């Protein structure tokens, strides 16, 4: 079909006085393929909408150029208007003659405005419609990790009517919190019961994810259970694989044992019905490094308080900084001090040595400016929060980068809270870093909302072929597959001999890296293709 173009010029209520609109129109009318050039006043208002509608309905055009304000303001609305008028929004080309032209310069800018519009016209000639189509997606979600986070995510997803499969490495659900006495373990028990009762949650214990292929809406996941391996399909995957804690060996010259114990061991002692010998003096040491401090801080404050209240021992806490930047922690810190827990802050790490069956802590208290030597019956060491076993393996399996400490999710603010660079793969809770309970809960709600948004019941509408690889030109060099940060490119078999790259429109984030790098020029990003950009340059006589 021959190109027939309509051009709308907007003078912004007559305020763009440094552009001679009649002159611009005169110049444009002489170009080829132009059906009409209209000067209008307020394209963004209702009158503008009417002006566009009546012209498009009568003139039978197939390309639209609008010269007005920044695309930031109205591009989406103009696109929607064209769609209403049965014109594909992909056939619209905009020229910014307000912010980038009239407002940017003093004096007459008619020539620049004309050039900007001619560039838009040049591009418009080559534009192709970008159809949108419905794609069927699998709405089932795989949740990896049967601890608090994974269980709560599954429960909330199931309440929104989303089918979930929960995979846990251990033989039972519950994770770390199950081992704690009292409030937490009762919560966990209740959750396990609810999950077992829920109709749309499938539980796979003693199972591990061993392979993930495919893309959002259609992930093919291999799950190993004992000696068997099953292959299942899911729309999205939520990782809630948790963390591990460890007493950092390098920080303590003495090995943890009878007198130097971990937080976990202290909790066991606190929970035991009887105590062999009540420790008179207890020292806690934490925040030796500044890494992942929220978790150790909370554990230390809670346990120090518990020791004080149950055993009535003298409690000293040695730390660099008390990390109180979570809800309620400052109050907990105050409570501990009011109850008689002593806090001593050091800059240089304290020296720890054995002293006749007890432990000597040699530290400099920066606030007193004095050296403090304390002999303790018991020293509780800092437990560091570290990525869970298998995090590295899974991340390389998923081809997803981790942060500088090895936790899932890159340090990219645009991915927070729970997204990853691959659409449809999410990370919740402590597997993505050092979070307190409030933040973990926000994570869980976020992942539920994000899954629901990406995979609504039924079908998903995507722009088909905004970015596509031409199977005739593709030589399957794999460059695009290597560079795509979203893993949106896959190889597909076209016949017995040929494989070519195919871009999933659901997984694609429209970053354009593949189109720029493809050595065979097989990948085209509609609206920003090489010929369209060259046409813009040639339109103003530069070549």
């Amino acid at each position, binding site marked *: 079909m021959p190109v027939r173009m309509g051009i709308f010029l907007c003078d912004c209520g007559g*305020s763009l006085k440094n552009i001679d609109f009649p002159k611009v129109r005169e110049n444009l009318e002489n170009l080829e393929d132009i059906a009409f050039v209209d000067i209008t006043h307020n394209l963004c208002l209702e009158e503008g909408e009417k002006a566009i509608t009546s012209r498009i309905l009568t003139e039978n055009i197939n390309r639209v150029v609008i010269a007005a304000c920044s695309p930031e303001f109205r591009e989406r609305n103009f696109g929607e208007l064209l769609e209403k008028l049965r014109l594909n929004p992909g056939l619209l080309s905009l020229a910014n003659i307000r912010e980038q032209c009239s407002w940017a310069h003093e004096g007459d800018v008619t020539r620049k405005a004309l050039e900007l519009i001619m560039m838009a016209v040049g591009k418009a000639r080559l534009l192709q419609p970008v159809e949108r189509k419905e794609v069927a997606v699998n709405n089932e979600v795989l949740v990896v990790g049967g601890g608090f986070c994974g269980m709560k995510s599954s429960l909330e997803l199931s309440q929104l009517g989303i089918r979930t499969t929960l995979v846990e490495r251990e033989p039972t659900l519950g994770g770390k919190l199950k081992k704690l006495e009292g409030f937490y373990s009762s919560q966990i028990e209740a959750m396990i019961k609810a999950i077992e009762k829920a109709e749309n949650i499938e539980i796979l214990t003693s199972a591990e994810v061993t392979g993930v292929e495919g893309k959002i809406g259609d992930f093919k996941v291999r799950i190993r259970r004992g000696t068997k391996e099953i292959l299942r399909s899911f729309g999205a995957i939520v990782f809630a694989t948790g963390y591990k804690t460890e007493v950092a060996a390098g920080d303590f010259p003495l090995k943890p044992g009878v007198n130097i114990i971990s937080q976990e061991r202290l909790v066991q002692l606190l929970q035991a019905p009887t105590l062999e010998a009540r420790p008179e003096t207890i020292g806690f040491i934490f925040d030796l490094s500044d890494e992942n401090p929220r978790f150790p801080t909370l554990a230390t404050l809670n346990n120090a308080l518990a020791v004080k209240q149950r055993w009535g021992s003298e409690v000293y806490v040695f730390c660099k900084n008390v990390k109180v930047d979570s809800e309620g922690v400052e109050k907990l810190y105050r409570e501990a001090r009011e109850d008689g827990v002593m806090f001593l802050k050091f800059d240089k790490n304290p020296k720890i040595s054995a002293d006749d069956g007890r432990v000597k802590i040699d530290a400099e208290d920066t606030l007193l400016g004095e050296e403090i030597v304390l002999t303790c019956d018991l020293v509780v060491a800092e437990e560091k929060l570290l990525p869970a076993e298998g995090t590295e393996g899974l991340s390389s399996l998923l081809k997803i980068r981790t942060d500088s400490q090895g936790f899932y999710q890159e340090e990219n603010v645009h991915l927070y809270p729970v997204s990853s660079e691959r659409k449809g793969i999410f990370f919740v809770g402590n597997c993505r870093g050092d979070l307190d309970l409030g933040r973990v809960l*926000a994570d869980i709600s976020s992942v539920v909302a994000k899954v629901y948004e990406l995979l*609504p019941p039924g079908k998903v509408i995507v722009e088909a072929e905004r970015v596509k690889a031409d199977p005739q030109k593709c030589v399957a060099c794999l460059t695009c597959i290597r560079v795509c940060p979203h893993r949106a490119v896959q190889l597909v078999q076209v016949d017995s001999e040929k494989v070519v790259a195919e871009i999933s429109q659901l997984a694609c984030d429209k970053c354009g890296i593949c189109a720029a790098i493809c050595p065979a020029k097989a990948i085209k990003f509609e609206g920003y293709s090489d010929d369209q950009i060259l046409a813009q340059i040639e339109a103003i006589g530069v070549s």
Partner: protein
Amino acid sequence: MKAERSIVVIGGGIAGITSALELANSGFTVYLVEKEARIGGQAASFCCKATEVCTKCSACLLPQKLSEVASYPQISILTNSMVVGVKGELGNFQVEVCQKPQYISPQKCIACGMCTEVCPTMPKAIQSPPPEAVPYSYSINESQCLRLKGKKCNLCREICPTNAIVFGQKPERQELNNIGAIIVAIGFDVFNAREIGYLGYGRYPNVLTGFDLERIFRNQGSLKLSSNGKEPKKVAFIQCVGSRDENHGYCSQVCCKYAMRLARLIKHQKPDAEVTIFYIDLQTAGKGFAEFYKECQGNIRFIRGVPVEISEAPSDEVEVKFENITEGKVDRENFDFVTLSVGIAPRKDSWELAKVLGINLGDDGFFDIKEPFNSTETNVEGIFLAGACQSPKDIPDSIAHGISAAERAMEVLKRCQ
């Protein structure tokens, strides 16, 4: 009972905007009620703190969300508006909204700027919106405008090409019916540093707050003191101003991070500047922040303990009296300027809204939650909290909480369908 698929979000800051977008993406109709003339809230005045690398302050996340909200047909933005009454219950609330006179209709204003050109007052009574403002429309300063002061001027109305300017408006009340749920996201007040007299804020021109500094960097791009036009060489930050004291039993969670980022930005722009940070406990939690702190330690001086007094010194300098722990004595040092790292305080007007909605306030003055383990639900079923009005939060945490509130609202509505 049929639950309605319309939701009112009170407050157009980063948390409210996030909730609104999340709900609209899932097919809900949203009324975003904003007290000010523009949405964006506090985060709209923050600056990018990138040095040669991004320092992940997240200030750039707002403009992106703003433009998304602006072009979303399912989100109605009601600016200059306040919620003054609520009736009904979960699934079907009636929300009464009062809109102050706007004088310039954001629906009609095309931001051409001709009104400002003809406005005869100095400074102009009609002002242009900041570049990323949503809605992107002009506004009239009531105290400057001749017409609103009873004089006869009509110049702006005559020139406006779209008849967007209307005088003689009265506050308008409208009722939003069939509202399924309400999300409260009214944000926070920046702590007023004048309340701590000995720090000299408001008395000495070269004592600024962190929020002042954000604005200076945002508007000027680099640091110059307005008092004397000098480029400062010696700078101090004082942490925990309005946090962790007898009146504030909480950590504001943002000040250590913004102070370190601003300090790095100053060092980046002026490598010979000397920057000191006085602190109680440094908060270095968060993705990648421990490494950032290590880098800061290389060229920023950290002193434990916050100063006890600030006074004016000759040649526009500020004298800081602090305890020098290493030498065990009280020291005095002069700085070109001092930044008070002010914290997040509950909004002064939150009790009014609490009364209208029937929700509780907690000990610290932030809105209270129904139960631990659930930071978005209030004591009233169907009313949710998002962002810093619940407890102090930085931008990423506010975004996460905003999504969280939207999800809770969706789930509760789904359950009662």
